[in-house]
């Protein structure tokens, strides 16, 4: 178990800022997911942590030791890659042992470690095969195994599941989580898949344009997004967003309509000005049209998702999603009213796009 602290990492490439003063404190044994759309700098950040990529300024500190100037192999890290990057002409056994062999580890230790990893990942029967004879999922296991035999206390993952099919991805996700429980090593995991982030992470760092937008446990990322970007990026369907203005006296005005904002826990009371209301589909109730504090809406269509359903309503000039029971969705009328649970909603400043 090791702590990692990332201090003011900056990197620009040909005038484009890739990493803009990234700070992160990672506690020993934490499972951190770095989440973001492609091109947000998440893989670059991981490469900088690993030492595979240089940064312009900043420090990587592992267990209170500044490793910024060290070679990747000297940092005590292990890494799993998106394309697995197995050594193509070597058997699985050799793939696992080659790094130790080069490092001059005694033979007995090598055999012992390979056996341990093979048992842990259930790849004993594959040990004498070549990577080309393995399926994607099996290759993934070997790649994880190769990282584990390094016995480093920190393991980095660069989108390790994105080349697997959906079912296998779900299974491997659970196994990785269990592996983390067993090994208790610090894990830093880069992905663009928010389900992976939500299910596996102790804390998620959402990145956008080279900055960490929010670094928090997954549930608070979902419930209390720190910025408009996080609100739009995390959650499926995306959070409903309504542009309007706060009057500073407990009302949020959208066009001709208004809703009460008095139950919302503002960081600064009586905030006024242009704002965006973000509300999740499950925080909206469908009520009789004309009920108090409701906004009239028109049903566009419904989607049945099996366990529940989504209703899509035209409301205040926007298409909004509302989570419904399957029965309610089947018998939904055309003209309804929508009531927002403002206490669970989010307000963002229209100018800074930060949470109010």
């Amino acid at each position: 178990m090791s702590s990692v602290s990332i201090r003011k990492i900056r990197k620009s490439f040909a005038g484009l800022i890739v990493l803009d003063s990234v700070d992160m404190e990672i506690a020993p044994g934490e499972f951190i997911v770095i989440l973001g759309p492609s091109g947000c700098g998440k893989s670059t950040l991981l490469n900088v942590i690993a030492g595979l990529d240089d940064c312009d300024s900043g420090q990587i500190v592992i267990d209170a030791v500044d490793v910024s100037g060290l070679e990747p192999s000297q940092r005590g890290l292990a890494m799993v890659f998106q394309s697995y990057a197995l050594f193509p002409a070597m058997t699985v056994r050799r793939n696992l042992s080659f790094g130790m062999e080069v490092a001059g580890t005694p033979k007995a230790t090598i055999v012992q470690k390979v056996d341990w990893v093979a048992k842990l990942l259930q790849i004993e029967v594959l040990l004498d095969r070549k990577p080309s004879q393995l399926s994607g999922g099996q290759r993934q296991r070997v790649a994880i195994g190769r990282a584990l035999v390094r016995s480093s206390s920190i393991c980095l993952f660069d989108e390790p599941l994105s080349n697997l099919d959906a079912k296998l991805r779900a299974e491997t996700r659970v196994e990785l989580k269990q592996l983390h429980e067993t090994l208790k090593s610090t894990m830093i995991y880069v992905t663009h898949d928010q389900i992976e982030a939500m299910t596996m992470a102790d804390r998620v760092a959402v990145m956008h344009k080279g900055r960490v937008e929010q670094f928090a446990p997954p549930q608070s990322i979902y419930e209390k997004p720190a910025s408009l970007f996080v609100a739009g990026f995390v959650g499926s369907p995306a959070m409903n967003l309504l542009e309007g203005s706060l009057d500073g006296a407990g009302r949020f005005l959208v066009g001709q309509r208004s809703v009460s904002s008095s139950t919302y826990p503002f960081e600064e009371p009586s905030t006024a000005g242009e704002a965006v209301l973000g509300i999740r589909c499950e925080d909206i109730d469908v009520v009789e049209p004309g009920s108090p504090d409701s906004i009239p809406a028109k049903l566009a269509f419904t989607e049945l998702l099996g366990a529940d359903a989504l209703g899509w309503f035209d409301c205040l000039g926007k298409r909004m999603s509302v989570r419904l029971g399957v029965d309610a969705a089947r018998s939904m009328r055309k003209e309804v009213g929508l009531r927002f649970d403002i206490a669970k909603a989010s307000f963002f400043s229209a100018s800074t796009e930060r949470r109010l």
Partner: protein
Amino acid sequence: MTVVFFFGIVAVFFYGSILWTGYMSLTRSTLMPNYNFVGFDQYIKLFTNHRWLVSCLNMVIFGVLYIVGTLAFGTLLAVFADRRIRAESLFRTIFLYPLAVSLIVTGLSWRWVLDPVNGLQGLVRGMGWENFTFDWLTDPNRAIYTLVIAGIWHSAGLIMVIILAGLRGVDEDLWKAIRMEGIPLWRAYLQVIFPGMRPVVASCVVLLMSDVIRGYDLVIAMTKGGPGIATEMPAKFAVDYYFARVNLGLASAASIAMLVLSLLLLAPYFYSEFRRRT
């Protein structure tokens, strides 16, 4: 229509010629074709012919040294170019340039350079080292190595370009994994990268093998098979017997023997390619 026509031409002039040569090798033809069938007489003559046997031995010596040398040298150049050196494309052009020169010109140039009187030896002696000797070209035991040197010089650039293309196709993540494991560069190339590029290397070997079997122009330009018969090659043997010694039968037998030899050498390659597919 065009395709049929095209295949017709190929069938007649290519496979037709092979069949006709095969037939000729079973006759006692000399200057003109003679259609009297004599069985395998010409092959028996061929394989008891000292000059032919020396040719075959020369081809093996030249072939092994040339293929190994060119691969090693070309690969080394490719590895250097792959390390993102400055002016890479300039070097690539320089090393590829010999390939643009015909083998005849290559051979002539090297003959001049290696000529004991006018070439390198003469130059060094002229500078004062009177005892300097480099007369491989005229030494019957060493002349074959001068062919190897010229051949490697000519083909190393091509191998470099092919291997370099293969190296550029190596997954970026694989290099990252190598760095994470702290594997030294020479072990990374020898034990990880090149074993993973087997198809590329195999293509290079096949390409070079065909150079060896066809090898004619370089010999003609540099040594004309000499001194004596020290650098005779099978292709030159066949041409000599076709046109200079007007022995159509024996020359045809030599040609067919070369064809069979080529097929035998290529068989492992096709076999492994075929096995990979299925």
